[in-house]
């Protein structure tokens, strides 16, 4: 049974959803507090859930990126552990420099809460695996417009670091990007919420596959 560390910051609010998602896949979830360091070796993978860490003060994810637990997460990244950030978790990973780019205010300046279709473009160390497969799940954010400079966009494109794209690009993200990964493919981040699409009664169970961590 894989042990999954779930990072909690002040203002994280999707932590229970991630706990349930991890349990549904018969993995063992465990809380990690932002003010504490941890030993990466005690875990198999890490998730940064959605929410509004530090009330989005300064920039979304910027203050959370400077917390002690993130120092341990950097160490985990250096050792190649899988790290998954969703929504605010994605923003934190970008602000911490563990993923390229940054998430800015949506193009129309509004909070957007709607169902979106996502296409898998490249394979990460994480599930899912079928290229061009389309997933339906909710998005709910104000700061989800992925931005990266032209030359770096070309670089992540050439490296196959674009993980997921929107079919309808609701927030104005560069290259329709909804999710990306780092060069080593062990760190992934996405704005929409697979943790809110786990059962048919939720509207879709497409998100379940994102918690299939058959890691060696």
């Amino acid at each position, binding site marked *: 049974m894989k042990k999954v560390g779930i990072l909690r910051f002040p203002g994280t609010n999707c932590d229970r959803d991630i706990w349930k998602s991890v349990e549904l896949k018969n993995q063992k979830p465990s809380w990690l507090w932002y003010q504490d360091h941890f030993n990466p070796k005690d875990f198999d993978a890490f998730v940064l859930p959605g929410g509004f860490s530090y009330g989005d003060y300064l920039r979304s994810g910027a203050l959370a990126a400077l917390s002690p637990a993130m120092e341990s997460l950097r160490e985990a990244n250096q050792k190649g552990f899988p790290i998954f950030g969703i929504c605010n978790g994605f923003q934190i990973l970008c*602000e911490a420099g563990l993923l390229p780019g940054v998430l800015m205010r949506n193009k129309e*300046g509004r909070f957007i809460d709607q169902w979106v279709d996502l296409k898998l473009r490249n394979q990460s160390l994480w599930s899912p695996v079928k290229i061009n497969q389309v997933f339906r799940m909710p998005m709910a954010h104000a700061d989800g417009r992925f931005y990266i400079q032209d030359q770096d966009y070309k670089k992540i494109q050439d490296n196959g670091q674009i993980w997921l794209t929107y079919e309808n690009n609701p927030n104005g993200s560069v290259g329709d990007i909804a999710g990306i990964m780092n060069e080593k493919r062990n760190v992934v981040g996405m704005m929409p919420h697979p943790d809110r699409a786990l059962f048919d009664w939720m509207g879709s169970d497409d998100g379940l596959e994102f918690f299939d961590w058959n890691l060696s």
Partner: protein
Amino acid sequence: MKFALKILPKTEVLDTQGRAVQKTLMSHGFKLTDCHVGKYLVLEIEEKSREKAREQAIAMAEKGLYNPLIETYQLEEI
């Protein structure tokens, strides 16, 4: 020592706040061709030497007070 950090979005980056403020002002008859919204941080630094305080302020900015991908900053002593 007291320093202020003036942070502004880069001109090539879409500034949604600036755009909204500009549109609202224009709807009231004001004429303007551009508008940007940034941040102003006041840092009271526990340091007597001006140079060392300045170095500290720069270190704080680089630590994450601004994001070099999308913002620029200016430092001023106040």
